[in-house]
């Protein structure tokens, strides 16, 4: 879990951003008093800062400079301004990334985790997921059950990964497709059915039966 500091003056966006980050498993902290940002920054000691440019009192560039003078914490600018000169300024003042509004949530999360990864603040993702004796190794794409194991395709692995992450909950077909898209697997409804069937067959080979349950209109569950 990484601690992310949100410096954004639009209250609504601030709240939604913190929900988004919290849902993605980060700890989000918002600044509401813009006159003591640097003091707050020192107190909070975040792993990453999301920084808007148009702020009351000091603008984002000034804040970035102040933070850079005391810390190497990665800073991602999030702003509505998309002129190249602003982007250039953001990078030259030590910003790590620059995202323009309106941003797309998966893109934002991907950028956040890639910046965290670069700064080595990203906790290593759990490499093996297990449930009811079924073990999924994310690195090698191998699912095993007792002695037996079978190799999955990237697509099948991601489907199983998504279902196992949402243990016990139904995941709708649309959500599954969207999840795959976030990993650059551009699948569609028909292909998904084929993949689920194939995944079930592979699981059957190693003696796992009825692991993935289907409920009409609701989706899949493990």
């Amino acid at each position, binding site marked *: 879990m990484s601690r992310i500091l949100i410096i954004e003056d*639009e209250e*609504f*966006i601030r709240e*939604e*951003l913190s*929900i*988004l980050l919290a*849902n993605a498993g980060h700890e989000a902290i918002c600044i509401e008093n813009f006159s003591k940002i640097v003091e707050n920054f020192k107190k909070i000691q975040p792993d990453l800062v999301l920084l808007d440019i148009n702020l009351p009192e000091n603008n984002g560039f000034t804040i970035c400079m102040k933070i850079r003078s005391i810390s190497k914490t990665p800073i991602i600018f999030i702003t*509505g*301004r*998309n*002129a*190249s*000169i602003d*982007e*250039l300024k953001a*990078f030259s003042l030590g910003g790590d990334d620059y995202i*323009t*509004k*309106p*941003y*797309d*949530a*998966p*893109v934002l999360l991907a950028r956040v985790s890639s910046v965290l990864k670069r700064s080595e603040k990203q906790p290593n993702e759990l490499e093996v997921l297990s449930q009811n004796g079924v073990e999924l190794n994310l690195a090698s794409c191998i699912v095993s059950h007792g002695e037996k194991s079978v190799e999955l395709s990237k697509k099948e692995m991601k489907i199983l990964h998504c279902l196992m992450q949402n243990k016990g909950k139904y995941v709708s077909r*649309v*959500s599954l*497709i*969207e999840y795959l*898209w*976030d990993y*650059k697997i*551009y699948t*569609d*409804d028909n*292909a998904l059915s084929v993949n689920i069937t194939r995944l079930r067959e592979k699981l059957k080979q190693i003696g796992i039966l009825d692991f993935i349950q289907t409920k009409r209109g609701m989706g899949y569950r493990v």
Partner: protein
Amino acid sequence: MKAAYFIRDKIPLILLHIVCALLLFIYLSAVGLGRHEILLVLIAWLLILFGYLFVRFWANKKRIDGLIDTMDSLDQKYLFADVAENKGDIEQQAYFSLMKRALRSMTGHVSESRREKEDYREFIEQWTHEIKIPLTSIILSCENNLDDNTRKILLQTKQIEDYLEQVLYYARLGNVGKDYMIKEVSLDELVSDSLSRSKQALIQNHIIVATSGLEYNVFTDSKWLMFIINQIISNSVRYKKENPVLTISGSEKGDAILLEIKDNGIGIRESEIGRVFQKGFTGSNGRSRKNSTGMGLYLCKGLCDELGIDMKVESELDKYTNVKLTFPKGGHYIKESSYITKL
């Protein structure tokens, strides 16, 4: 200036001289001067007259030619009255100063409307930035509460975003030189960001997407290119047919990188393909779908030209549309007055 025109201009003067010469001839005959003497006087008169006319013609021609040269050498033709020398007789000077006044007032009007246009452009740019704040709020709020309804809203906000970007980039077109940053851009990252942005539209329209050969990097401005790709994908979604497929592929061609975005949609008529880049051109496709502005491809082409990307559209009616973007490899095209940075 032609001699014939000059003479035509001087006809009253010449007639006046002929009448006076006739009168003089009659008078001198009446006082009893010999024919020879009279003829001599008249010949002298004519010589002086034509000598005078010739000199005037020559001087005028030189002056007019000089003025034409001055005009030709001017970039801003309306500054002519301020630059040209005001010589000549009283009448010419009067005309000249009248023209000067007319041009001054015109220059005033031009710079005023230029200022107004600039203000307007700045306002539009400001406005598009402000409208992005509530739009971002809506998108985030929907993404945090994904269900069938919010997915529908996201589909619509995507369209708002596209139209908003058109406005922003239209306001900036022609000013690209002041606002771009060339860096090495990964096609894969750019395409996947763009697909991610169009995710709802593509998934909800059941469009099958296939990508290949995107491992290349190109030197360009990522935000302009992103806009271009977004607009092309939007078009593919808008003009789709049953069983839609969108193929995005990169390849190396000689010393250039080629990015192709191909759909199997309704295509473009052969008679219209030459005009798809025209501003406001909607064609029969646009007219039959009603919600086309005819601005998307026009803006894309304009931006591609400024960025040195070659943009071509190939299509067959009812079969496919293929948009080809060719990026010069290695060295890249830089417009004067721009700055480049490699990050």
